């Protein structure tokens, strides 16, 4: 029983939100490569949502399109989620490993990505009066992904439902902390760089005399 290919497993967990991740864990399946691909697709979906959305629906039409914030919102957020969750699972007696958290979280994101692409596709044929279809598909994706994410974390760490929710909330806090520290570190290194550079210029001026 349960002999699937890598993609077959992905399909299995998506369409079996209750048992899928438990099966995945039981059979020790899940591909890290595939999960990286999914994260990349998440980024592409976000770009598509802003660039390929039908003009009548596109709320993000800006003068200058910048891809860096989207990169942060997809890839960076994903990895902070994974690291934050991994850091917390020691405190919460979770059984997941970094690799597992990464794979399971990525798998849970698939409905959001797919529904995002579908709504982008449909937005090119619909008018504002029919916006409900685009929105319905989009929110369906979000809802599905949230359910899957809860199940994924539950299966990954073998938590109870309440503990899963609590750990997820704390993961969000941990993400904030990580990002805050990262920014702090960045500005510190920047100051260090400026300090070093000013010493260099000072010396350079003196040598030149």
């Amino acid at each position, binding site marked *: 029983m349960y002999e699937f290919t890598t993609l077959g497993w992905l399909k299995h967990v998506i369409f079996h939100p209750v048992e899928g991740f438990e099966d995945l864990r039981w059979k020790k399946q899940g591909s890290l490569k595939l999960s990286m691909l999914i994260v990349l697709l998440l980024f592409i979906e976000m770009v598509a949502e802003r660039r390929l959305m039908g003009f009548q629906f*596109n709320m993000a039409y*800006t003068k200058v399109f910048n891809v860096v914030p989207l990169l942060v919102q997809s890839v960076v957020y994903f990895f902070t989620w994974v690291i934050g969750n991994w850091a917390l699972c020691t405190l919460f007696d979770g059984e997941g490993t970094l690799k597992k958290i990464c794979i399971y979280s990525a798998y849970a994101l698939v409905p959001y990505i797919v529904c995002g692409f579908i709504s982008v596709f449909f937005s090119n044929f619909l*008018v504002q009066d029919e916006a409900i279809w685009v929105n319905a598909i989009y929110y369906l994706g979000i809802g599905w992904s949230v359910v899957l994410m809860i199940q994924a974390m539950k299966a990954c760490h073998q938590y109870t439902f309440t503990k899963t929710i609590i750990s997820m909330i704390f993961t969000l806090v941990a993400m904030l902390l990580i990002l805050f520290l990262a920014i702090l570190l960045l500005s510190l290194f920047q100051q260090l760089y400026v300090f070093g550079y000013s010493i260099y210029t000072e010396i350079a001026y003196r040598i030149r005399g």
Partner: protein
Amino acid sequence: MRINRIKNSAKKLLILSTAAAASLAMSLTAFADEPYNSYSYDTWDEPIPSQSGYRVERTINGDGMDLQRLTDPSDPLFVSEDAAVGLSGARDMFYDEEREEFWIADTGNSRVLRFNKDFQLIGRYYGADGESEINIDETTGLSNFMEPGGLFVTTSPSTGDLTVYLADTENARALRLKIVSETEAEIVTEFTRPDNGLYSNETFMPNKILADNAENVYVVVRSVNSGAVQFSSDGSFTGYYGANRVQVTAAVIAQNLWRKIASNEQIEGMRRNVPVEYANFDMDDDGFIYTVTETNVETDAVKKLNPAGYNIWDNSVGDKYEFGDIISGLYDATTNTSYSTRLTDIDIGANGLMNVLDYETGRVFQYDRNARLICIFSTKNSTSDQKGTVTSPNAIETVGRRVFLLDGTKNDVTIFVETAFGAYLHNAFELYDQGRYTDAVADWKEVIKRDGCYTMAYIGLGKAALNNEEFTEALDYFKTAYDQDDYDKAFKYARDDFMRENFTAFVIVILVLIVLLIVRAVLKKKGIKLIKKKAKEAE
């Protein structure tokens, strides 16, 4: 020989004169650039350079207005030898379309001046005759004006007389005057502080005045924030008209919350949140009253009031009307000052164009009937000696292709005349507002030739294309203008059109799909596998 010489000298003269004429013409064509950079606002509400809709034609001061006639004893308009021959802090100007005359409330000199359309003096009024006890001149017996701040000129619908409504500010009264001659006026009605419980202010200092067709009089009174004070034609106080609302800021919300928990004593000590009184108003041909508010507010900066006093341009019902400079607190690096918009006067031209004057920057914002920005011109200059710059712009009037700007510090009138670009804009907007989109195409095309970033032009062209069922072009134009709503409409039509044209193809594709599904179902039922190889390999 001699004839030849004459011929020669005549020739020389001719050449000289043509050269002179040519140089003159050159000096005329080499017209100085406007002392301001024209700009407009794009879809993202960011300022974007544009062409000038108006250029400075000339400025007229007291000398050019023939004010020295007031000091000439032989002149019928003679007042006295030492009468002021210039304006002084004039605060209001009015153009009487019927007689083509300008009227200026020369505030600092406490008089009213009357000009023909070329700004030559044709009348002056220092006081009025009639039943009044206020400020009686001992020598002439007239009731003199004192620093009048606003006036309104019309032909009385009931009597047919030339009637001037005057806000006689320092005399604490408003007047309805019947103009008898070039120097004489007669008081018909005198409006003083209403003796009414509803009128709670201590003072009555009328700043601006208007009268509608039913001869109701509206007076903007200093520090009265309940709206314009309204009088009926017989001079009795009837109420307030069209009050502003309080702008909702964070401070106001916070105070409202505090009020809920504060004691009565504490509430008394709090600053009251009262709306800002409006600075000026004007009336269009249909009887709508337009008001401007001088303090920097977003709520009710410009209002279009219907006769019941309701604002038609109300942003709180979901529309987005914007007036003046959109960015609040403009910073000017050269003078190290920051500006904030202070709309001081509004004028509705006969052509439906609405000009709003910003006192703070000296800019004139021109809008069409539906409050769409057409162009921005004029400027304030700290040095104020350059033609076309203003120091304290107090009033604006439109006459045909020209805009007149009254300056209360330089004491002159600056005349702006529309450029070719401005003319195309006005034509295009006029046709567009009438819904004649196709007729406006030529004008919009000319506009785009001169300013490719003019958003409205693309919307206009898009609507014309949509009218002519050229959907691809329409979609293209609306996308350029970033007009999502119109794009959506055009897209709907384009989609319907596409479906209609390709209906057969659609039907065929759907039929083929259905057939394929049936075939697949049948095959599955009978256990026939078309792709056998792969299945075997997998096993």
